[in-house]
């Protein structure tokens, strides 16, 4: 399994995403924002950080990077794509996922260990979880409030496309406590919390996040 991990100027969690891929026995392939091809990878992770400083809006500048054009094309053909935190923001800006992420309702950056409920286990990134399972992973963001218009929210809920929901307190004002969503075909997933920081109890609160990367292994092998 070869998984591309994109680095934009200002990306921070690319090393963590690559490490998580390795923990799941995959090979992490570095992709540079200016690349015009995906080097034959089986899946792509858009990691967290502050691409281009998050100036203007988080993800607004990154979505125009050459490598994102390739990601959009590949996603259309069904390649699994995971956006974590800033990566989620980039995927929304690139219209691979609906809605937008806005400033936290309390206006502060929040770093905390956050409980999430896994609500959809049919995606390329969540098949290893049990439906309704609660997992503990770090959340660290200043613009994590998920917003979408009423129709979009109804569609996401109706189609079961809310993948992760905050439990034990909504940390940022997200509509419907949404922490992560998926595309209509279940191949593209974006979430604000950081599963790649929860792969080893030595450096994270748990290893609950490993499930996403192991799920991908199944998705790629069975494809």
């Amino acid at each position: 399994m070869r998984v591309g991990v994109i680095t934009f100027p200002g990306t921070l969690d690319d090393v963590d995403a690559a490490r998580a891929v390795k923990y799941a026995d995959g090979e992490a392939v570095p992709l540079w924002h200016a690349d015009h091809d995906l080097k034959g990878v089986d899946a792509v992770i858009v990691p967290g950080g502050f691409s281009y400083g998050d100036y203007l809006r988080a993800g607004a500048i990154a979505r125009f990077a050459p490598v994102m054009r390739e990601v959009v094309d590949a996603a259309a053909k069904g390649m699994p794509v995971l956006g974590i935190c800033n990566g989620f923001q980039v995927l929304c800006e690139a219209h691979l996922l609906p809605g937008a992420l806005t400033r936290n309702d309390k206006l502060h950056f929040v770093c905390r260990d956050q409980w999430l409920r896994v609500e959809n286990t049919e995606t390329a990134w969540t098949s290893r979880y049990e439906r309704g399972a609660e997992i503990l992973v770090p959340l660290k963001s200043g613009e994590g409030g998920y917003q979408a218009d009423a129709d979009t929210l109804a569609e996401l809920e109706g189609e079961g496309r809310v993948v992760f929901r905050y439990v034990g307190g909504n940390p940022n004002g997200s509509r419907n406590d949404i922490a992560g969503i998926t595309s209509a075909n279940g191949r593209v997933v974006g979430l604000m919390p950081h599963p790649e920081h929860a792969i080893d109890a030595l450096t994270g609160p748990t290893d609950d996040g490993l499930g996403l990367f192991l799920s991908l292994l199944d998705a790629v092998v069975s494809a």
Partner: protein
Amino acid sequence: MARVVVDVMPKPEILDPQGQAVANALPRLGFDGIASVRQGKHFELEVADDVDDAALAKIAESFLANPVIEDWVVRRIDA
């Protein structure tokens, strides 16, 4: 060179925690009579004379604002 202003505001139906925080703080600071506050972004651009209104609209819509959550207004300023 022309001067252009673009104002970008959260859509009315979108939560605006920043504006709300300002509105809540004002009475505490002794300023009364402010019924509501909304906060957005203000851009000032210097553009070449051959940049037409269509191009400016495009820049605002596809880049400066996120139409999912924001409205925007483009104005040319007379020098």
